[in-house]
């Protein structure tokens, strides 16, 4: 299957909203139709054709050759198919996606995977703040699927996480898993202050934990079947996460300042 390729001509002069360039919205459109789609966020009109050289192919596999931190909302609401970005993205790649696969071979801005409910988002570089988190006014962040960051993530990764699995292979900023409702967040390198701040339910696994808040209660070291199952399920996606989960883990219950049914696991 030949992919539909968008090759970036030059760094855009304004922030662009790439929300229209997703498989389900491009289905049935000719290259000419696609070239005419408007992407601007300022008063200066810019079409897809102005920004990208377009090479025709199946909309089920979209490829961006070259990226920029000005390219926002890549893969917004993707339901199925594959989107690959060879370069950086701006804010909120993979926001509200419910299926399919989005791969960013570069860094991205804040709100990556924001409120995604399914599918798979992989970020090869670093992610900004509020990874998977809700936008202003929304009640829930990520509610399903798998989100993997190979590099580092900013502050408040997994804010209001409700369901799904988030793996940060690098380090996380301050307050990872803040206000978590449920779901799973794994951080393999360092993380900033107060992980799981005000979390209600859910699971956070930290390979190199900072000092936990006093509102997390030590429940002791345990060897849990569920960690082994998750290790096996995660192995194809992140070998390092799989290795962390088979280690003996100490369970801390919290945040007792909120509901207190969440947990943070640390290696024993």
């Amino acid at each position: 299957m030949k992919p539909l390729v968008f090759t970036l001509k030059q760094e855009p002069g304004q922030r662009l909203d790439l929300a229209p360039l997703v498989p389900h919205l491009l289905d049935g459109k000719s290259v000419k139709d696609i070239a005419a789609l408007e992407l601007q966020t300022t008063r200066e009109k810019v079409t897809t054709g102005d920004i990208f050289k377009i090479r025709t192919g199946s909309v089920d596999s979209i490829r961006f050759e070259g990226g920029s931190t000005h390219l926002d909302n890549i893969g917004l609401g993707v339901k199925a198919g594959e989107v690959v970005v060879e370069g950086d993205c701006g804010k909120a790649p993979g926001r509200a996606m419910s299926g399919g696969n989005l791969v960013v071979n570069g860094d991205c801005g804040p709100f990556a995977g924001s409120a995604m409910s399914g599918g798979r988002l992989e970020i090869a570089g670093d992610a900004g703040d509020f990874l998977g988190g809700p936008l202003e006014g929304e009640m829930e962040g990520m509610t399903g699927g798998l989100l993997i960051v190979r590099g580092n993530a900013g502050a408040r990764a997994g804010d209001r996480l409700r369901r799904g699995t988030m793996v940060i292979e690098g380090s996380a900023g301050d307050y990872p898993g803040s206000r978590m409702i449920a779901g799973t967040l794994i951080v393999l390198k360092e993380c900033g202050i107060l992980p799981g701040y005000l979390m209600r339910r859910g699971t956070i696994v930290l390979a190199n934990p900072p000092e936990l808040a006093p509102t997390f209660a030590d429940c002791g070291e345990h060897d849990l079947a569920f960690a082994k199952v998750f290790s096996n399920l995660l192995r194809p996606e992140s070998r390092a996460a799989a290795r962390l989960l088979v280690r003996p883990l100490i369970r801390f219950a919290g945040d007792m300042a909120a509901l207190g049914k969440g947990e943070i696991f640390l290696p024993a």
Partner: protein
Amino acid sequence: MRPMKKNGVRIDDSFAEAFPMRGTAILITAPNRRWARQAATTMTGFATSVIGCGAEAGIDCERVGKDTPDGRPGVRVLMFAMSSDTLQTQLVNRAGQCVLTSPGSACFADLDGPDRLPIGDQLRYFGDGWQISKKFGDRHFWRIPVMDGEFLCEATTGLTKKAVGGGNLLLMGATPGTTMRAAELAVSAMNGVEGVILPFPGGIVRSGSKVGSKYKAMLASTNDAYCPTLRGAVPTKLDEDIGCVLEIVIDGLTEDAVAEAMRAGLAAIVKLGPEHGAVRVGAGNYGGKLGPFHFHLKDLLP
């Protein structure tokens, strides 16, 4: 007509008549083989016949750690019942009383399919609010805190409406000793077939029944035509050289699995020969009008 003979064993020109059932499969794991087997054995106890036990259940096979979701040794259990509702009730009751209670156990779905039976979705209430739901991809687990740690249980398992119950072989031998030997060899051959269970004790039943009874309250009663002690007193089905009859009943997730098991059993019986084993093999049926699945012995011979 001269009877079919294979290696000296007479094979009846008959067939086993089997019925559609609802079936399901789960995988029970534990810290070691012993406790995985223990949970599975307990769960499949008192599950020989739907007539009195609610369900028919048994151990299908064992799995080593690298083939189980949590890397621990496991045992695959199959359960069968006549309706989805009964199967559901039996599955949850048995998992709740026998697997949840067994030290170190975990319980996983082991049958794919669109029709689902809740297990963890029901047992989770034991957690009294401390149960934890975990989803990964399309799999959903419940973690229930228990006194030795956590009971991990998949939310649902698959249900098949294509299961087949009541495949059978009737082994007729000169003495209980030789008949038992043939039956034991057949059982061990049939246990090697995946997707089937032999629900009776050790796979063997000695009290085959016929439909009806002289007593009004009894729906089924002893199959007098196959009782060797009544050979001269009733219209018997037994020849003069037969002093013992044992039956092997087979339930399977598919029609093919049941046929495969009967084929394996027949092969073992024929290989042993009449001298030290069964002199004749038959199969139980009701004239072919009740059950839609007919397994003809002549088609399954080695």
